[in-house]
């Protein structure tokens, strides 16, 4: 037996997110070159992302385009198209998050040339953990939670809620029926993330939508 082995150490020194971040930078450059303001919308399944986008589509019309990320089916893209704007579906085929490369491919399929187009909304895969670390090239990362999920979610998912620029609390129409401490949620999010902007809305009734859409309009026209 020969135990005369040596160990060769090979230096790698590479951030694992490098590739994603390169695609994100290229998306950001492409989109800002076309004056398109981009949102990355993250929540649990069922919190109301698609409903919010339908409501926004009615507000913004052809100023807005949507990329839908789902594990399977293009139902959400179909819903948003019906509400009046261009939508492209990414089927991730099992992956629990979108990455910047997938968004880059989607952008290649979309019509981004219209002068009217000013807002791109990306609906991420429903999940509060996995999408949080993937920069897609967006201008704003938005976290959305809804009343039925309970008011203890913020501190359970600090990786997401410490990174977002905007927190949306959805399904406010259910407040009379549900024990949900809105102020606690806002305070906890600010503790992780002092500069976060907060909107309380009901994507279903339209409550708070004008304020939120007005805020976005200021971002992309201001």
């Amino acid at each position, binding site marked *: 037996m*020969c135990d*005369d*082995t*040596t*160990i*060769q*150490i*090979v*230096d*790698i*020194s*590479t*951030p*694992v*997110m*490098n*590739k994603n971040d390169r695609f994100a930078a290229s998306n950001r450059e492409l989109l800002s070159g076309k004056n398109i303001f981009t949102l990355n919308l993250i929540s649990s399944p069922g919190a109301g992302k698609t409903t919010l986008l339908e409501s926004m589509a009615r507000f913004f019309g052809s100023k807005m385009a949507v990329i839908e990320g789902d594990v399977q089916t293009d139902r959400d893209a179909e819903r948003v198209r019906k509400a009046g704007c261009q939508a492209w579906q990414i089927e991730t085929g099992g*992956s*629990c*998050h979108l*990455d910047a490369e997938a968004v880059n491919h989607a952008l290649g399929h979309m019509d981004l040339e219209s002068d009217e187009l000013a807002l791109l909304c990306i609906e991420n895969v429903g999940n509060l*953990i*996995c*999408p*949080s*670390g*993937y920069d897609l090239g967006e201008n704003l990362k938005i976290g959305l939670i809804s009343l039925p999920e309970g008011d203890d979610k913020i*501190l359970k998912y*600090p*990786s*997401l809620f*410490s990174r977002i620029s905007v927190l949306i609390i959805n399904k406010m129409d259910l407040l009379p029926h549900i024990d949900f401490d809105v102020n606690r949620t806002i305070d906890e999010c*600010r*503790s*992780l993330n*002092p500069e976060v902007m907060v909107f309380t809305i009901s994507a279903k009734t339209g409550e708070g939508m004008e304020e939120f859409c007005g805020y976005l309009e200021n971002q992309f026209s201001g």
Partner: protein
Amino acid sequence: MHELSLARDMTRIIGKVLGGCRPLDTVNITIGPLSGISPESLRFCFTEVAKMEGFGEPKLVITETEAKLICLDCNVEYQAKEFYQGCPSCGSFSRRILSGREFTVDSVEIMEGTD
């Protein structure tokens, strides 16, 4: 389970530097406490992915760093091992994150028999 895609990213990066796959003895990585990565779940995924992709069954050595934060209430700079650790001087959670989200493949070790 984004740890599965992260494990695949790791083998892609290693394969690129080595110019292909080969059995590894050790893989050294660094994970920050605010990276949102679960070390146990990454270890589980990486073991499977490495084996499947021809990198053998390397030891995964994880260096867990401390995050650097600055308190927005009293300006103290401090280190933390996890999200739920507030300012040691005033207890506040209001802070800016200076570092703690890193995730890098640092090096790999390859056993070479001398024959």
